[in-house]
């Protein structure tokens, strides 16, 4: 009886682990064309995909024009969060949040601003010089100042 019970428990554990693995693998990988990067007075007009990843991983404390770098990201409530996490951090929303919690705890980066909607990200970047944010292409509206768009090159 005991042996059967343990077998059943082991089976459930393996099923659970492999199930969550397949769930992660099933997600579609987003590409640069799915997003629009916006910046306010950050001294650059275009950025490569790899450069973009570096920026959003906190590589720069300040921009070449001496503006302090402010990273703006979608929060868990923002529908863009999962896609942005996968595109920039190759992980889930939780993985992205874990990365930033660790960076801030190390004292190596200032905390990014996590905002609940792409509209809020557009508004925040517009009001804060040095801010850089990323939104889904589908969220681009007339509210977005075209001068804020940073071109993503390959």
């Amino acid at each position: 009886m005991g042996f059967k019970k343990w077998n059943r428990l082991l089976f459930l554990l393996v099923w659970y682990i492999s199930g969550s693995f397949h769930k992660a693998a099933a997600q579609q990988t987003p590409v640069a064309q799915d997003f629009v990067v916006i910046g306010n007075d950050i001294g650059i007009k275009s950025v490569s995909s790899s450069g973009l990843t570096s920026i959003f991983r906190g590589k720069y404390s300040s921009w070449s024009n001496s503006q302090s770098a402010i990273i703006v990201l979608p929060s868990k409530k923002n529908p863009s969060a999962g896609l942005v996490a996968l595109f920039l951090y190759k992980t889930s929303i939780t993985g992205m949040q874990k990365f930033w919690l660790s960076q801030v705890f190390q004292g190596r980066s200032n905390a990014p601003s996590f905002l609940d909607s792409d509209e809020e990200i557009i508004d925040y970047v517009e009001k804060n010089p040095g801010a850089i944010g990323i939104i889904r292409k589908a969220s681009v509206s007339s509210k977005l100042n075209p001068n804020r768009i940073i071109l993503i090159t390959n």
Partner: protein
Amino acid sequence: MRVPLKISLLKEFIKRSSIGCFLFFITLGAKAQKPETHFNGFGHLDFSYQPADSSNSSFSLGEHDFFITSKLNKNISFLGEYVFRYNPGSATTFLPSIERSLVKINYTGNHSVIAGKIHTPVNYWNDVYHHGRLFFPTIDRPIAFSYLIPLHTLGVQLQGQNLGKLNWGYDVFTGNGISSNDAGKKGMNFSWGTSIHFKPNDYTRIGASFYSDFISNNRAGVHSGHNSNPSHYTGPLYNKKVDFKLACLSIAHFGNRYELLSESSFNTTRTDSLGVAQNFSSFLYTGYVINEKHTPYLLVDYLKVDKKDLYTYPLELLKTGLGYKYEFNHLILVKSQVEYLFELHDHKDHGAHNNLLFKLQLAYGF
């Protein structure tokens, strides 16, 4: 009479210069701005079970960490880490301590000057994990943290990070060292050190460091995990000067599938009585990330303190362990660990002996 006068003049000069520099930097480019302050908390609850001696099995409340960051203006930020931890000397058996309290001035690009109490950046673990059990890959710190590693420095630090294509980083620091406390120290000798690292990709960091301190009376203050009255040593305690040097090498890789952390330290202590002692420690962690929730891992941790050492006193420990980490999300996780500690030196009470331990840790942050 001349020497004390010179020292007091020098102290006064340093004091005034420091205040002047600090005020200069504070006003430099400062534009009135509302401070942006963030508060976080971290804590952990532990359980350990020792089959050979079940009287040593218990739950315990771990360190509780209050963490603050604040952006004071566009170039200046503050970071504070205040910990409540077990202390048998307290009426409640818990006492608060300041673990980090620093002002960081980003003076250009990715270069900063830091003033305050820092975690001495001698290796990856001490520079990255600090007191956050939520971030530790294993339940405990490497053994060397209780003996060789100077955990904190109270002083100034120059820091550079993410420089060039390989993301080079450097730290140069000086301050009150091992024998001091947060209120100050006696004498004019300061600890100093330097470290360098690079990140060949987003998941890997390789670094090396050198640290030097002169411990005038061989007493550890609050900046070291070392205890001046070691439980493993029964001989007479040495209370004269010790010249302490430490070199460390760290290799860290935390990828989406594999995790590896190797921390090695080589330490020498020189005393007038027994000359130079050479100590060594090595910690190796490897983890396999099944997915973002499940990570089984292995660890091996070794420390050898030379028979001529009068700072840590002779000691040889080997720990091997097998563990499993389950992350509910980025704010809470559980680690379980089975470990075997080989005490290869003669123990004060029992002679050489070995311990099998089962440990559980619930670590959280908010």
